């Protein structure tokens, strides 16, 4: 899952800063632009402008962090899943998210950043991750809604990334997208089962949808008019479809699904527009979005603290593995001598 259509600078203020003017070698730059224009791919050893590299490092690492932090809200429910079947499914899903984080960290490392640097960024709070995980998962239906809507929104965002101009990123996204469809379907199916249950269970589903719907719309990032970095991302073939266009696709796809499920989406302005052949929808609260991006959402502190604790608690395992390897190497050297 889960890139929030981020071109959010890590020092995210209210507005993005304009791109730095290029001081690159014009000849190399022209060759690079020509390759992008021809819809070619850039591979790790190829020359690329520094700003392209930086943008990718930021986007891919934020994407990876989102996968890793994304394990936490769902992980909370593993021990409380309502059946063995749902528990096994949830463990598999959370394991996938960890895997997605690892594919993405590896892709970012091909750009010259290190795993340690990226983790340092996440753990110190410098690097951003998808804001959706800074909201709590209050009942079991939240787990279903995360699969249906959060993963659904993520799939919309990620499918165009499979055609991203940077080879390692696009290849990682192909793997991620293949696995993502299971995430969305299992969530939707879990909700279908709840909707066939008691009145209280149906109310839980509706409650979860009400709390998460607007957050999911915000996942696509600020409106196109307020995303100056988007144009550059499009130019470079990192971004293929604009935030607003993706958001519209998501709304159009989700409304009929909500109908089948039997829930309402909490937006009085949501209605079919015959002229546009799309659904109209209401105003997103961007103030709240930025507030959460800046660290003041309901769970930002808790999520980060949990993540840092997990990392620190695992330090002895990493140390032991290295100590064991060193010992084996020394033994082999001694035997060879």
């Amino acid at each position, binding site marked *: 899952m889960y890139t929030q259509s981020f071109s959010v600078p890590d020092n995210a203020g209210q507005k993005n800063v304009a791109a730095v003017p290029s001081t690159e070698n014009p000849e190399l730059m022209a060759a690079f632009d020509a390759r992008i224009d021809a819809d070619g791919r850039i*591979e790790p*050893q*190829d*020359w690329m402008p520094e700003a392209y590299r930086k943008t990718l490092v930021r986007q891919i690492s934020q994407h990876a962090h989102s996968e890793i932090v994304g394990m936490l809200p769902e992980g909370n429910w593993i021990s409380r899943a309502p059946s063995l079947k749902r528990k096994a499914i949830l463990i*598999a899903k959370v*394991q*996938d998210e960890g*895997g997605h984080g*690892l*594919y993405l960290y*590896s892709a970012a*490392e091909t750009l010259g950043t290190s*795993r*340690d640097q990226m983790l340092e960024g996440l753990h110190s709070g410098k690097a951003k991750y998808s804001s959706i995980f800074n909201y709590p998962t209050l009942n079991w239906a939240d787990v279903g809604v995360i699969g249906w809507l959060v993963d659904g929104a993520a799939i919309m965002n990620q499918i165009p990334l499979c055609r991203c101009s940077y080879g390692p990123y696009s*290849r*990682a996204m192909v*793997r991620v997208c293949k*696995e993502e469809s299971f995430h969305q379907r299992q969530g939707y199916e879990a909700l279908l089962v709840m909707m066939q249950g008691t009145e209280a269970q149906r109310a839980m589903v509706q409650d979860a949808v009400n709390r998460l719907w607007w957050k999911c719309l915000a996942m696509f990032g600020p409106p196109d008019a307020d995303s100056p970095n988007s144009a550059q991302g499009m130019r470079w073939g990192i971004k293929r479809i604009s935030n607003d266009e993706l958001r519209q696709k998501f709304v159009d796809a989700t409304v009929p699904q909500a109908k089948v499920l039997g829930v309402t989406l909490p937006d009085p302005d949501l209605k079919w527009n015959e002229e546009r052949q799309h659904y109209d929808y209401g105003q997103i609260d961007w103030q709240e979005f930025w507030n959460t991006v800046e660290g003041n959402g309901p769970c930002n502190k808790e999520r980060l603290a949990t993540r840092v604790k997990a990392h620190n608690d695992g330090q002895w395992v*990493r140390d032991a*593995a*290295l100590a*064991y*390897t*060193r010992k*084996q*190497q020394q033994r082999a*050297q001694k035997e060879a001598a």
Partner: protein
Amino acid sequence: MNTPALKEWPLWEIFVRSKQGLEHKHCGSLHAADAAQALHMARDVYTRRQEGVSIWVVPSIAITASNPDDKGELFDPAADKIYRHPTFYEIPEEVGHM
């Protein structure tokens, strides 16, 4: 072989054979302390859905790659040797498939 002092888990390139009869194909990389651990982790990271029947792990530093700047020199000479392709030759139709 001289091994440098390890400070963090080194990087490994992972190759997976998807089924008997097919080649091992590069599918990504990961960090692991040693080869045995790299294999173990590759199984968890890259074959959660029966994507493979065999895995190779290779230390990333052991790979020597061609330089992208040499691409022209290395690969362009093949461009004008179209006689290396079967379609270069015209064979009478009555001969049939050849």
